[in-house]
């Protein structure tokens, strides 16, 4: 029964997102295209942080790997969208495998610092090879390149539905993954790593797998961002972009399937609305974050689950 409820929730979420395109004014349609892409990133981060209990402060490198893998193979390699997209996602996955293999030898604060350092290195490498990456300035992917089978992905409609399809696939895949034995084992690691090990689970391997899947999702988001918004820049590899998914997931509800999406929507509109009211919009945003942390420490979806809807996946 809970299974049916969570399916209804997931399908319902997608139906609402689909319908929003026809309801919302143009500005918000554009906003939601961006929100859905960023939510994919948050979903990937949530697998590692919310389900496995590993806090990475270096996820921007996976997002950026997807972005640069895609952008560079189009602009320098002359590839078309689909192969370039796969290269972007593959680059993020490989980077996650390599970085994870080394970083997962540490735990807790050390893991946070090591991932942060890896991401900083990646960021500096992007700047160092400015000849190809255009460094801080970044580069544009031309409108003529951003097409699949003759469909121009730069129109508002195509952009929204491309983001929607990618989001739907990632959202449903992740919802399914965390209900399966693999997801349950990750939760077991989060809850009590030593117990999981002494039940015979290969904890090191499971963590690495979680990190790679998380990196792949982040890579999808990075490549999709470059594809849909046509810009690739080093700022997406900076610390800020490692902190964002943490905020989104914390606000929305770590370890819930809908939390990442809720968190991104909330943050986006919090900044959007407050910046329309005052120049000190970061003050408003900061205050809202502090209040949420005080009164809903498990995030919006997490608090909802605790108070009213225990079946919430």
């Amino acid at each position: 029964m809970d299974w049916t409820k969570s399916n209804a929730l997931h399908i319902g979420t997608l139906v609402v997102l689909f319908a929003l395109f026809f309801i919302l004014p143009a500005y918000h349609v554009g906003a939601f295209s961006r929100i859905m892409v960023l939510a994919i990133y948050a979903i990937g981060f949530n697998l590692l942080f919310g389900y496995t209990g590993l806090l990475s402060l270096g996820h921007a490198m996976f997002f950026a790997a997807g972005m640069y893998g895609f952008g560079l193979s189009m602009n320098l390699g002359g590839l078309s969208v689909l192969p370039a997209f796969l290269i972007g996602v593959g680059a993020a996955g490989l980077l996650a495998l390599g970085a994870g293999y080394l970083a997962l030898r540490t735990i807790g604060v050390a893991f946070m610092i090591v991932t942060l350092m890896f991401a900083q290195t990646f960021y500096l490498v992007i700047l160092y090879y400015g000849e190809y990456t255009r460094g801080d300035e970044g580069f544009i992917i031309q409108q003529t390149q951003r097409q699949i089978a003759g469909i121009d992905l730069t129109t508002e409609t195509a952009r929204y539905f491309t983001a929607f399809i990618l989001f739907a696939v990632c959202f449903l895949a992740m919802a399914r993954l965390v209900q399966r034995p693999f997801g349950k084992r990750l939760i077991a690691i989060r809850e009590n790593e030593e117990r999981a090990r002494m039940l015979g689970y290969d904890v090191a391997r499971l963590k690495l797998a979680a990190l790679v899947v998380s990196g792949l999702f982040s890579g999808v988001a990075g490549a999709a961002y470059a594809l849909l918004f046509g810009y690739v820049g080093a700022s997406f590899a900076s610390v800020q972009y490692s902190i964002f998914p943490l905020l989104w997931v914390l606000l929305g509800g770590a370890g819930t399937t809908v939390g990442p999406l809720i968190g991104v929507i909330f943050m986006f509109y919090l900044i959007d609305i407050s910046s329309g009211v005052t120049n000190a919009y970061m003050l408003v945003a900061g205050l809202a974050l502090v209040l949420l942390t005080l009164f809903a420490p498990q995030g919006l979806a997490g608090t909802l689950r605790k108070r009213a809807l225990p079946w919430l996946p």
Partner: protein
Amino acid sequence: MAAMNILETKGLTKIYGGLQANTDIDFTLQRNAITALIGPNGAGKSTFVGMVSGRTTPTRGKVFFEGQDISTLPAHKRMQLGMAYTFQITSIFPGLTVEDNVALAAGRKLAHDKAAHAAKTAAVLEKIGLAERADQTAADLSYGHQRVLEIAMGLAQDPKLFILDEPTQGLAEGEVDAFVTLMRSMAEETTILLIEHNMRVVTDTADHVTVLDQGRLLASGSFEEIHADPAVQAAYLGTTADV
């Protein structure tokens, strides 16, 4: 002999700095029996089972499980070979339901077969008397029930060797009685290595007793033999011990 003894250690030694926690322990464990490992505090019992289960790396010595040298295997591989382990300090998944706790334990072998997995989980919950609390969050259980849950997680793995590190510690009298009954019923299907302080539990359940003292294996045998052993009396039980 190798087929008879499920577990063997040879010269197993652990040195922490200058402290010899375990010294050259040659130990054999008989199949389908309950063996109690006793000894005063600090005798090295937990260090010993730590080295058997793979949680502690020995300074030297070897561990054989069903004749296979497992000395270099990590803990999770040893569990996969058929060991199960309950911690001295209760170790469960506090944020998950009772059912999910047991399902995770059963799931390592059975996750590919949904029906068998569900059946095993239900059967263990029934046997251990937690079926009615299946949907409760494990953290909300009483201490006694949490201990029972941890044993359920061991049982759910169908272990060949079940290591119980002071399972009755902190339990009330009535709970200890229930536990003794449970142990006896488990002994039909598995081999149990029990670390225990409560002598009543030892006399009521153990077929064999092994005594550790100051990191050395002092004596081994039936409870009566152990009780009659002068070295054991001197080291641990005391000549006037009332058991």
